[in-house]
């Protein structure tokens, strides 16, 4: 059953050598069309069911959102926000979960080789057995997605149902969605489909409707059709211009090899100092001078 090697890996966390990536595969994408979403949470149910996850039975905290946030056992949640647009009410409902960035911050931050991989089809997957539970992925993610389990201290998030996609099925959430608000296919097809949706929305008066495929993270493999494309943050805090934090870039970027080289250089400097300047040794005459000093100071007491 085991695949002894996988040839569709684009990136692996904490791996400097190239990953096997000779096999070509089309990039996939999940398109979440908010204009069609009725917030029914079928995606949440299907996600839990397929991935064998059961979160705690929580509380109502005064809103429809439940579970109230992503958790290690809730890889996707619907977020509800009521806003007034002119005299009309808009109930903005967004399915939150991993965006499967083309340039994933989690993967960049992860120190454990192969704990996070990006397949050639664009899916960013956590390989939990390699996860060491450090939580760096949480810090790397510009969308605040990964969650660390209190039970096993490992990071969890949406896998885009990589197991289903691998056998030619679509993710559980996309399959369940009653209104095709979640659509799944190649990224090219999804972008084409989104064009049609945007035209329809504009014809219905949503002049600012837009596709959310943020370039700051190289684009994403989960995209949104936003009816109010000019105000993404109204969709329960969808970042307007997400990018990997500059701090993380610094921390996980060039700083590392440079620092490592610096340290190596320092060690090397020491070595060459030693071989050129030689050791700083105490001569017998120094000992004598010391004894002389002792005698002088103590007046021969010792």
């Amino acid at each position, binding site marked *: 059953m085991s695949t002894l090697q996988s040839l569709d890996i684009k990136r692996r966390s904490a*791996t400097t050598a190239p990953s096997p990536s000779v096999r070509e595969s089309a990039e996939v994408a999940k398109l979440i069309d908010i204009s069609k979403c009725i917030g029914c949470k079928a995606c949440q149910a299907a996600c839990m*069911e397929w991935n064998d996850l059961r979160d705690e039975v929580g509380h109502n905290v005064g809103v429809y959102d439940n579970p109230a946030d992503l958790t290690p056992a809730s890889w996707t949640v619907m977020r509800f926000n009521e806003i007034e647009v002119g005299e009309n009410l808009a109930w903005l409902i967004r399915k939150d979960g991993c965006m499967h960035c083309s340039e994933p911050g989690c993967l960049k931050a992860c120190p454990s080789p192969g704990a996070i991989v990006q397949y050639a089809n664009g899916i960013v997957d956590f390989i939990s057995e390699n996860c060491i539970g450090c939580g760096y992925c949480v810090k790397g993610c510009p969308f605040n997605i990964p969650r660390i389990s209190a039970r096993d201290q490992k990071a969890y998030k949406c896998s885009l149902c990589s197991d289903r996609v691998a056998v030619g099925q679509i993710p559980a959430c996309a399959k369940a969605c009653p209104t095709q608000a979640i659509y799944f296919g190649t990224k090219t097809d999804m972008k084409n489909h989104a064009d049609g949706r945007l035209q329809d929305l504009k014809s219905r008066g949503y002049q600012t409707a837009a596709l959310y495929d943020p370039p700051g993270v190289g684009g994403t493999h989960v995209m949104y059709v936003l009816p109010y494309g000019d105000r993404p943050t109204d969709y329960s805090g969808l970042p307007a211009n997400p990018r990997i934090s500059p701090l993380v870039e610094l921390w996980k970027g060039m700083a590392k090899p440079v620092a490592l080289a610096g340290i190596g250089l320092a060690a090397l400097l020491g070595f060459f100092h030693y071989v050129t300047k030689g050791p700083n040794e105490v001569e017998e005459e120094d000992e004598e001078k010391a004894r002389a000093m002792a005698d002088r100071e103590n007046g021969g007491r010792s």
Partner: protein
Amino acid sequence: MGAMSVSRRQFFRYSGAALGASSLTALGFSPTPALAQVRPFKLARTTETRNTCPYCSVSCGVLMYSTGDRAKNSRSSIIHIEGDPDHPVNRGTLCPKGAALLDFVHAPTRLTYPEYRAPGAKEWKRVSWDFALDRIARLMKDDRDKNFIAKNQAGQTVNRWTSTGMLAASASSNETAFLTYKVVRSMGMIVFDNQARV
């Protein structure tokens, strides 16, 4: 699964040699961790059965996946339910109730044996089917025999039984419904309704 984890462990066998390697490693030698491997498709050898969602009247088609191949010595257990893509109405989709049907099948509050509560009792008592059905049959017959109305005050034949009633299930099959109808009406029961009114 088991086989896979063994082979992954083999990948981890970079063992003592790596421990000894020190500065060389910094120069670019990197150990080989387990390569990426997605979770195996969990339905690979399950048995598929077609059914209809029991909740609302959209009546979405569902596919139920159960363990085992119905061999004599295997007891099937449903492990997954998803939408039937062939179904012309739901086309494979399901709502949050339908997508969670698995938890209905395996709900901890599923009843698994007949129970009886005696008058004034505070708890249930587990009973046999025979006990329950004999007692029910006796209570029904006695009530019918005692309270059956053959004629009304005007002397018209009415043949009705109004002192025992029944509510029929709105999610039971047509076949259950028709059999229930036959049983109930043959006894002249008339306090009889279903969920249609609510």
